C-alpha cells in the first residue's frame, strides 16, 4: 500500500487538469475509442482523488469498477461496429452491382447531430461557467482543489446527455456524470456499505449501457 500512500499525498491540481481533459474528450470527440480510453483514464485519475478521502482498499475498488466497466462497453461497441461495417459493405457491393460504380463506404456509426466545432465551443463556454462558479459559488464540504473536478464532470456528463440520444455516447456521458457525483458523495458519506452500493450501481450502469448499445443496433424480431 506504499504507492497508494504516496499517491494520496499528491496535489489535486494535476489530476483535476487530467479530468478536465478526459471529460472534454468524452463530450467533444466523435470516435468512441477515444471516448472509451478517456473514460478509463478518468476512472484511474478519480481513483487517485478518492485516495484522499477513502481508505486505499475502497479507492482501489472504485478503480477496479471503472476498469471493469470499460471492457463491457468496448465489447458491445466493437461488436456493433463490426456488424454495421459488415452490413454497410454488403449494401455497398449491392449498389456497385446495380449502378456500375463504387460509392464511398458509409460510416459505421451515425454522425452526432452537432458538429465538433459546436461541441468545442460549448465546452469552452462551460469552462467559463465553471471558472465563475468556482469563485462565486464554491461547493461546500469538499477541498477547494477537488471541487472543480466534481462540477466539471457533472457539466460534461449533462452536456453529453443533452446532445445525444444514442446509447453509446449518452452512456459515456452518464458514467461521467455519476463519477463527478461520486467524488462529492464520498466526501459527505464515506463508508464501506455506501461505497459497495455505489460500485454495484456503477457496474449495473455499465452492464445496462453495454446492453442498450447492442439492442439499439439489432434489427428484426423481439429477442
Amino acid at each position, binding site marked *: 500500500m506504499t504507492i497508494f500512500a504516496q499517491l494520496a499525498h499528491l496535489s489535486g491540481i494535476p489530476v483535476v487538469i487530467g479530468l478536465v481533459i478526459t471529460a472534454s474528450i468524452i463530450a467533444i470527440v466523435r470516435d468512441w475509442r477515444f471516448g472509451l480510453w478517456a473514460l478509463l483514464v478518468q476512472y484511474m485519475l478519480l481513483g487517485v482523488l478518492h485516495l484522499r478521502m477513502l481508505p486505499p482498499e475502497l479507492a482501489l475498488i472504485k478503480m477496479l469498477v471503472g476498469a471493469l466497466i470499460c471492457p463491457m462497453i468496448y465489447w458491445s461497441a466493437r461488436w456493433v461496429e463490426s456488424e454495421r461495417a459488415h452490413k454497410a459493405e454488403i449494401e455497398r457491393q449491392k449498389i456497385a452491382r446495380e449502378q456500375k460504380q463504387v460509392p464511398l463506404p458509409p460510416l459505421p456509426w451515425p454522425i452526432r447531430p452537432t458538429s465538433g466545432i459546436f461541441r468545442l465551443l460549448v465546452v469552452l463556454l462551460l469552462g467559463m461557467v465553471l471558472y465563475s462558479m468556482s469563485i462565486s459559488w464554491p461547493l*461546500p*464540504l469538499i477541498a477547494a482543489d477537488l471541487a472543480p473536478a466534481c462540477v466539471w464532470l457533472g457539466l460534461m456528463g449533462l452536456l453529453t*446527455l443533452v446532445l445525444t*440520444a444514442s*446509447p453509446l455516447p*449518452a452512456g459515456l456521458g*452518464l458514467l461521467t*456524470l*455519476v463519477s463527478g*457525483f461520486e467524488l*462529492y*458523495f464520498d466526501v*459527505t*458519506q464515506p*463508508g*464501506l*456499505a*455506501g461505497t459497495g*452500493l*455505489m460500485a*454495484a*450501481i456503477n457496474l*449495473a*450502469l455499465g*452492464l*445496462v449501457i453495454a*446492453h*442498450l448499445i447492442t*439492442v*439499439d*443496433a*439489432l*434489427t*428484426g*424480431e*423481439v*429477442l
Partner: protein
Amino acid sequence: MNASSLTIPGPLFFLLASLALAALAYLVHRWNVLSGLIATIGSLGLGWIALTWLLDKSISLGGRSVILTSDFVFLGRSWALTPTAATLIAFGFLVGGLCFLLALPASQGWAFHPFGLAVLGILSMSATAEQFIYMVLFFWLGAVLTGFVLAGGRPGATMGALRLIVVCTLAAMPLLLVPTFFQDDAPPGGTQTGVVLGILGLGMLLMLPPFHGALVGAAAFSAPMPPVLVLSILPATALHIFFRFTQTYPAILQDGLILEICQWLGLGAVILGGLSAPAQRRWGSLIGYAVLIDWGIGLMALGQGSPERMALAVQMLLGRTAALLLCGAGLTPLFEAAGKRDDLERYAGMLFARPLNVLSLLLGLLTLAGLPTLPGVTGRWALLGDLAANHPVQVWIIVGAEIGVAVGAIVGLLACLGQAQPALVAKRRDELIASLFALFALWTACMLLSSASIWQPLLTTRP
C-alpha cells in the same frame, strides 16, 4: 421458538428469494413459458408471504414454521420489515406476478422475467431500508436494472430505458446529498441547500414536467408488458420515498413549495398529456400519455397537502395499476398478432379477429381516462369535487384531458375496425387463451380495488 422453526431476517429473505428465482428464470430463459411460470409462481408466492406476514406474522413451508424477523443489520445499517414496507413489497410482488402471468402468451424479451424479479427484490430492500440514503441507493439500483426489463424486448427501441435511467439517476443524486445538509455540523445555510436539493430530487423522482419524458418513453418504446411492471412499481416506490422523505425532513414541507410545485406541474402534465394523446398513432405512446394524465392528476391530489388527498394519490396508483394490467393483457396478444408492432394501422380487423383483447385494451385506456363507472374514476371524484369549488378551470382541464385520451382510444378502435390483413387470421385456440387472460385481468382489477383495506398500511406513512 421450537426446533422445527426457521428464523430468517425478513428484508434479506425477499432479496435473496427473488434473486434466486431470477437466476432460475434466467437459466431457462430460452423457454419463455417455463421462465414465465417460474417468475409468476415465485413472484405471487413472495407477495403472498409478505401479505401473510402482515396478517399473522407466521408462515409455514413444507410443515416447517418460518419466522421472518423484522430487523436486519449489515455493516451498521439497518433494514426493517414494517407493516408499510411489507405492504409495498406485497404490492410489488403481486403486481409483478400478475404481469408475468399476463405476459405468458407472448415473449416480452429475454430479460423480462429474470431482471423483473431482480428489480422487485432490490426495490424490496429500498422499501425496508431504515436509513434514507440506503432507501434511495437501492431505488437507484433497481431503476438502473429496469433498463434491461424495458429494452430487452424490442430491438432498436432503447429510448424509453435510457430516459428512465437518466431521470432516476438525476433524481437520486440530489436526494443522496440531502441528509448531509440537515446534519448538526452542516455548513451555514445547509438547511436551505438541503431543501432546494430535496425539492429538485423529489421533482425528478415524481417525474414532474419536464422530466415526464421518462414516463411516456417507458410505455412508448417497449414490448407491452414491461412498462406495466415498471410504471406500477417504480411510482409506488417513489411515493414511498416521498412520504418517508417528508417524514424525516419535515422542513421541506414548511413553506409548502414542494406541494405547490406538485400541484402546478401535475396540472402541466395533465395539459401535456391531454394535448398529445389524441394525436398518437401508436398504442404504446397513447398508453404513455394516458398514464401521464393519470399521474398528473395524482400529483395534483398530492399537492393538496391534506392526508386525505395524499391517500387519494395512493388510491389512484392502485386504479392505474389495474388499468395498466388491462391494457397489457389486451395489447400483448394483439402486439404478437400485429407482427410485434404497435402502429395503429397494423391493427386493422383486430376487433373482429380478437374482440376480447381489443375490449380489454380499450377498457384499460378508458379506465386511465377516468370514464365514469370504470375504476379509474373512484380516486378522482373527491379531487374533482374539491377543485370544482376552488379552481373550476382545473376541473375543465382535467375533463378535457380525459376526453383527449378517450378520443385517442376511439381512433384506435376505428383503426381496429378496418379491413383485416390476410396475415392476421385469428387462431381460435389463441383467441380462447387470450380471452381467458383478459377475463383474469378484469377480475384482478376488481380484486385490487375491492380490497383497498389491505393497502391501508401504505397510507400510514403520509406526513
